[in-house]
Every structure is written in C-alpha cells, then in structure tokens.
C-alpha cells in the first residue's frame, strides 16, 4: 500500500458516498470471463530499506565508468556532468511537472525550453529549434520524415556510409511504411537523382572526418534535395556549424551535453532548422509572447502541427519531448559557457591527437591517414579488434568500437573517442596495453 493515503475510514467514507459496499461494485462492467481472479505473479513488495539494498546490490554488479577507463564514443561520450546539473534538474518542481499545458504555472519549464531552443539554434547555426526529441537516432528519423513529407514524389534517402548505422536503421524503420528507400553512399559523386528526398551526412562522421560536408550540402541542394546533417554538439563549439554550410536540418544526439550515459537513455535528440522548416518540425515548440499586461512569458506554440490537434495529419505522432534531459543540457551549456565548451572540446582534441600520434608509433595508423579530426578517430588494428578489446577490458579499459561490426568494409577499424575526462596517463596506459597485446 505504499504511497496510497486511504485509511479504512477514508475508504468507508467514500464507499458510503457512492452508496456501495465495496470497490468491486465499480468494476462490475468488466466482463466476468476475463476478470483476473488471482493476484499478479510479480515479486513481493519490499519495504524501502529492502528495496534500497536490492537496487544497490544490482547496481554494484555493474562496472561503471568510475571503474572502467572508457574510449568509447559514437554519439555517446563519457563527458563530465557538473554537479549543479543534477542538483537543479532534480528539483521536484521541474522533475514532477508534466508538459506545460497551463503556461501560467509552467513558466519554469517553458523558459528553460526556450533557452534550450536558443542554444541549439545558435550552436547548429540554424534559424530555429524545438523542445527536443527522444534521442539522436530518432531525430534523424524525424528529419527524414520531414523531407519525405515535403516532397511526396521523392522517396529516396541517401545516407553517408559514415553516418552512425543506428541513425540510418531508425530512419529505415520510421520511413519504410511511407515507401521510402534508403541508399548508402560513400561520397558526393553518388548524390544524384530527382527521386532523392534528402541526403543525410554526419559531422564529424563515424571515422572522425569533417571536410566533406560543404560539397555534400552543395550537391544535395543542386539536385533539389534536403541536406540533413547529424552533428556532435560539443564538436560544434570548435567547428563551423552545419547551418553555415547551408544545411537545412541539423539533428544530433544530445547526451554529451550534461546527460549521464545511462546505457543510452534517456538522453535527447536535438533539431535545428532553417526558416522554411519551422512549421514542419515535429514535437513541442515554445515561443515567446506577452500577457494582457504586456509581461513577457512563454507558451507552447505552433501546435497546429501536432497530433493532439491535427491527429492523423500531424507532422509526427510525437507527444512527449525529453524536456528534463534538455533542461540538463541547458544548465550544462550555461555552466560551461562558450569558453568552457570550447575548452572541453579542445582538451579532448589535444589528448586525442596525442593518443593518435602514440598509436601511430605503435603501428596503429589512422584511417584515413591525413583527414583532420577532433577527438574521435579511427585506426587500423593489426589483428582482431574484438581480441584487443577483450585484452583491454581485462585490464579495466573500455577500448574503442569495433567498426567491423558496423560495416563489413571496416574490418579491423577501431574507433576511439577521447574526452576531457581522460588524462595523458590514461592515453599512455592504453598505448602500453596495446603494445603488450601486440607482443603477447
């Protein structure tokens, strides 16, 4: 009965007011043949102290990133989350509110979403943003649906091979029913056809590359398609944002911005768009307005796009956003500010370049060799990447992703990400273990 306030007297009072003897009377409309005449077969109730012990024990069975040294990336990074993020976002007034349907008592959530939209807009170099999506991959899916809806005669989506495969796979799941067809392309030359709705490119891409983007966008526009860019938000602190290269829609995974990893969720997806796309975005959008006294306030706006108004004609079926995760990102970006975010990206990048140099000396050469990169890069491993990762895990190191699992063309490629949480010592230790593994 945890969390239920009713005493026997309360219950009796209410039953009496209803003129019934037992709650069973309120369930008599259930067809007798399907009523559950037994208790559910679920584990017995625990007191809070027992529950706490049980959960602490389950949690202790996992090796967290305080115990393992991680070089994993691929959209999800072991970045530091300042303590103030949790302290503020966990405040009950934020945590236990719902979608801000009544703006007069929801200005906290609304103002924070407005701030979030502002930050995503400027980070991505676009004209507008919305209140967040479930994650980066579903944001790619939503962006693809926008492009498909915009040009009903175009049904092909061209995905760069170096877009994270999850994003492509979600887009495939989302768009298959609409008759879309996905083609994987390797470069700008493959962008062609008047049936192409959108070209989707990642920046930096899966191998850490960045320089292909302008030409991709230019060609995409040349064939009348929509340029969708999947971006790493921390990298945008240092890189020319996709919007400035002309991207129409910029989406990405928000986890690196103040969100803990949580095995991949909940995090959030973000979306920035150029002006023509504003009224075609999925999800919640917050706008500024004024009240009768002229005081500035914020409201959910452009709701004519949404499912609760438009039903089957909505731009998406999405109802919730990941508001709390977006709030964490907003607090994170406020705490870091422009210089802090740049420093985080720069420290990550300098350690990554140091590591890449040392690995090259150890015979693990970057692929592609000369392409600029920031803090995520790919090397070729002389041998089994899976075997190397096992060797490392035994020594408390989470090695990089085995890109051979992403694409058979990438057998032997090892994707490493370095964050500001890594140290020179961490990098040195990784190299030492790689050498030890080579000489085993």
């Amino acid at each position, binding site marked *: 009965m945890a969390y239920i306030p009713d005493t026997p007297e309360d219950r009796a009072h209410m039953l009496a007011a209803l003129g019934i003897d037992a709650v069973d009377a309120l369930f008599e409309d259930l067809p007798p043949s*399907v009523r559950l005449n037994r208790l559910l077969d679920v584990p017995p*109730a625990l007191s809070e102290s027992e529950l706490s012990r049980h959960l602490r024990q389950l949690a202790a*069975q996992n090796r967290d990133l305080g115990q393992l040294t991680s070089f994993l990336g691929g959209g999800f990074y072991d970045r530091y989350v300042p303590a103030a993020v949790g302290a503020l976002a966990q405040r009950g*007034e934020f945590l236990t*509110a719902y979608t801000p349907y009544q703006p007069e008592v929801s200005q906290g959530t609304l103002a924070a979403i407005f701030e979030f939209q502002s930050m995503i807009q400027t980070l991505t170099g676009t004209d507008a943003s919305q209140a967040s999506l479930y994650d980066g991959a579903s944001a790619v899916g939503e962006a693809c649906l926008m492009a498909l809806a915009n040009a009903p005669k175009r049904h092909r989506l061209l995905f760069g091979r170096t877009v994270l495969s999850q994003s492509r796979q979600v887009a495939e799941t989302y768009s298959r029913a609409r008759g879309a067809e996905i083609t994987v392309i390797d470069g700008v030359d493959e962008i062609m056809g008047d049936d192409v709705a959108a070209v989707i490119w990642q920046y930096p891409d899966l191998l850490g590359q960045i320089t292909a983007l302008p030409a991709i966008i230019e060609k995409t526009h040349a064939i009348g398609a929509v340029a969708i860019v999947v971006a790493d938000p921390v990298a945008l602190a240092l890189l020319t944002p996709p919007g400035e290269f002309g991207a129409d829609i910029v989406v990405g995974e928000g986890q690196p911005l103040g969100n803990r990893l949580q095995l991949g969720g909940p995090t959030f997806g973000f979306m920035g768009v150029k002006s023509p796309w504003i009224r075609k975005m999925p999800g919640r959008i917050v706008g500024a307005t004024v009240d009768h006294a002229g005081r*500035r306030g914020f409201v959910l706006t452009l709701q004519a796009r949404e499912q609760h108004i438009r039903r089957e004609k909505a731009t998406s079926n999405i109802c919730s956003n990941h508001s709390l995760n977006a709030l964490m990102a907003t607090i994170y970006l406020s705490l870091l500010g422009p210089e802090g975010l740049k420093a985080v990206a720069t420290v990550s990048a300098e350690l990554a370049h140091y590591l890449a140099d040392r690995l090259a000396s150890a015979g693990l050469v970057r692929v592609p060799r000369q392409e600029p990169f920031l803090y995520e890069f790919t090397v070729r491993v002389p041998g089994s990447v899976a075997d190397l990762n096992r060797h490392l895990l035994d020594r408390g190191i989470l090695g990089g992703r085995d890109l051979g699992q992403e694409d058979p063309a990438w057998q032997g490629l090892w994707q490493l990400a370095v964050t500001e949480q890594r140290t020179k010592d961490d990098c040195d230790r990784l190299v030492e273990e790689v050498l030890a593994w080579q000489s085993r």
Partner: protein
Amino acid sequence: MAVPLIFERSHPGRRGVAVPTPTGIAGQLADWVPAEFRRQSDLGLPEVTEEDVVRHYTYLSHLNYGVDTGFYPLGSCTMKYNPKVNDWAAGLPGFADVHPDQPPSTIPGLLFLLAELERALAEVTGMDAVSLQPAAGAHGELTGILMIRAYLAAQGDQRTTVLVPDSAHGTNPATAAMAGYQVREIPSNRRGRVDLAALRQHMDGSVAALMLTNPNTLGLFEDEVLEIAETVHRAGGLLYYDGANANAILGRVRPGDMGFDVVHLNLHKTFATPHGGGGPGAGPVAVKKALEPFLPLPRLVGNAETGWQWDYDRPQSIGRVRSYYGNIGVLVRAYAYLRSQGAEGLKQVAETAVLHANYLLSQVGQDYHSPFPGPVKHEFVLSLTEQKRRGARALDVAKRLIDFGMYPPTVYFPLVVEEALMVEPTETESREMIDRFADALKQINREIDENPALLHEAPHDTIVSRLDEARAARHPLLGWPQLKAEEESRS
C-alpha cells in the same frame, strides 16, 4: 515582471564550472582543422557563474508546478506521486554511468533488472513478450503498429487502414498515419463507448488494426471489449491496446486476456516515474507470441547464469526504433516502483484510483454535467456546456482553479465532449485533497453567477496572466536572438 532568461544574466568573461585547461600537448585547433572548418560565429551561450545558474534555475523552478507542489488532476496523464527512492536508484553510478556499448558481461545487474521488468510487464499485461525500448507512449504506439504491419506483411496481407474511436488520443491516428495507414474513425455510442454496430460496418479485410484505449479517454470501461475483439479478429485484424489508462485496471483485468494483440504501457503514468516537464517517459510494448519475431532490435536474451546478450539476429524484426535499449533511467524507476508495490499493491493502486475518481465525480456531479453514466474508472469527463451558457468556458474554470493552488484538469479533450474538463485524481491523493478540489469546483460554479470576472481574469497570482497564444503562433519568436531583437525594436 517578465519571466527572465539565463541570457539576461550573461556578462562577457564570466565563467561557470571550472573545466580542464588545454595544455598544448598536441597542438591547437589551427593545427588540426583547416580554416574553413574553424568556427568563427558566436556560440550564443550565456557567460555566467555557477551562482548565477543556480539562482536562475532555482527561480525558474519556483515558477513551475509539479506533483511535488500539489494536486495535479490532469486527466489522461496519471499525475500520481513519484517516489523519491526511485530517483535515487536511477542515479546510482552502476545504472547511470554505463556506456551503451559496454559489453553485456560488464553490466549483469542492470540487465537482470531489465529482464525482470520485462517479465513483470508481460504478466501485468497478460502478454507473452516485451520490449522496453520505446521512449514514450507514442513511440510505443508506432513500434506496435509497425509490428502489426510487419506481421500482416509476413502473411502476405497488405491491409491499408487502422481504426480509431473518435474519443482516442491524438497520438493514435497520428501513429497510424506515420506507419503508413489510412485512418478511419469509429464513433462513440450514447454510452461513451465504441459503437459496436459502427465498428462492424467498418471492419473488413482492409483493416489492419483497431487501436483502443480501455478504459477509454472518457474514463469508461469498454464493456463490450470481448465483442469488439471478436469482431476485429474475425475480420483478420489485430487489436492494439493504448495503455495510457492502464492505471485503472492493474491486477483486475489484463489486455492480453481481453484479446489485445499488442499493448504499450506508459511507465511515466502507471508506474509512477516522473514526467519531467514533458519527458522522458517510457512506453514499453508487449505482444502475443505470434508477434514476438517482429519486436524491435535488439532483444535482450540470456539469463543470470549463462549471461546476457543483445540479439540482433532477428530477420523479421521491424528494425531499430531508437538508439540502444530504452530509457534506462526511467525503467530503473519503474522497476523500483514495481518492487515497492507487489501484486497486492498494484491491485490496490487500481482500486483506489477508481474509487477516488468515482468519489470525486459524486461530489461535483450536482454542479457539473457528466455526459455518460457511471461508474467511471480512474478519471471522468465533465461537459461544461451549461457553465458556458452562463458565461464561463471550461478554460475559465480551469484557470480559476490555479488561484486555489491546484493544477487545472485537461480541457477540451476528448474532442467528443463539448467544453470538456477531464479529471483524474489518481490513487495517491488524499480524501481531503479530493474534497478540497470538489469544494473549489463548486465555489467556482457559484462565482460564474456572482463574480464572473474572477474567472475571466484568472489566474490572479501567477508571474504572468493568460498569455497571448495567437500572437505567439502568428509571429513565432522561438529563440533568444529573435526575442532580443524584437524587444529591442519595441523599446
């Protein structure tokens, strides 16, 4: 006073949290990236101290209303109390600081928890298999309908249409459309339930599925559900259960036993996880055996003895619907809630939620019109047409409730009820709170005649009064650069 923004606290040169300083160990940006790719433009972020940030968001939190603040009878949203121990659990490093690409062998405790939660949700729903992946109810719907589509396609059955009752949540038709279906609406009968005759008319070989919420959005149990199921199944269609209202039936009846083929649950409703200002939630899907091959990638397989694996080798799967395996932080909370309740507790939840709704309805039924006969389940809908004739719309009543320190019920939904006010007290609110709400509604009903301005100008004590929503939509100001420019041009 205007609602402030963090940008207005910005002061060039201020710094918040101390981050590591570049050491120059391997060059600098100009050494790594060609000029064209080096960002020149402003990041648009505020420059503030941690103190600024803490004060700003503490202040913003004071402008918000949550379940932790008070009564939140938002119909269809099940704003029950969210236990604090669940938040604590979700923050444990062993759950929160694990990378999604870590080998399963490094996270047996978490995977055990997820498997146990899957098992329990299958039992609660009366289904055979569960995927915890969907991030929200609507996401669960999409996953579910895509599975139905794939299941039918696998049988060579290309149906074109999904049926939804006219009282359905907007996500139902939107989902069906997103999954490539045409949508046909089934009208409600005078009892507020699916019109069975109309359903039988619409039900033919083109219909892939009927999406049903039960109890429905009017708070009424679809007491002809077995006939409905039979009708749909006989025509080769499938039955989808929208679990938004599952709080009403926990331990009393199960969708699987009523004939549903696919179910989603909103853990942020029924399983007490906090709504977070609009999310994250979680919308696991549960299916009958026949649909299991179509569940999204990956599936969690294995057990505590032999170890756990992510299974991607599932050729009939609809594919991925998101990155990785779900909103873990929400799932941990839901598991904790499950373990705090047990079977008796879950049944008590439903019974109490239903008792509270009926009791509240009995207290306000004299003053407000309830368009359908009871008993209701966990919520009910009032129609304020009579109040409207007297000069106050449902929105006015809702706004006036804010002055009483309560969050307003859902208004103007479901669409089938005129001037709808949709009230869901939940099982965690006390009788006194319910009485206080009823008293407030009754007083407001009197105020319509005695002092209507009180309603029209409500709310009175909030940082802003009613906002100009038309202006917001007509001239969208969606970011600080635009708002700042606009405010500067005005002043």
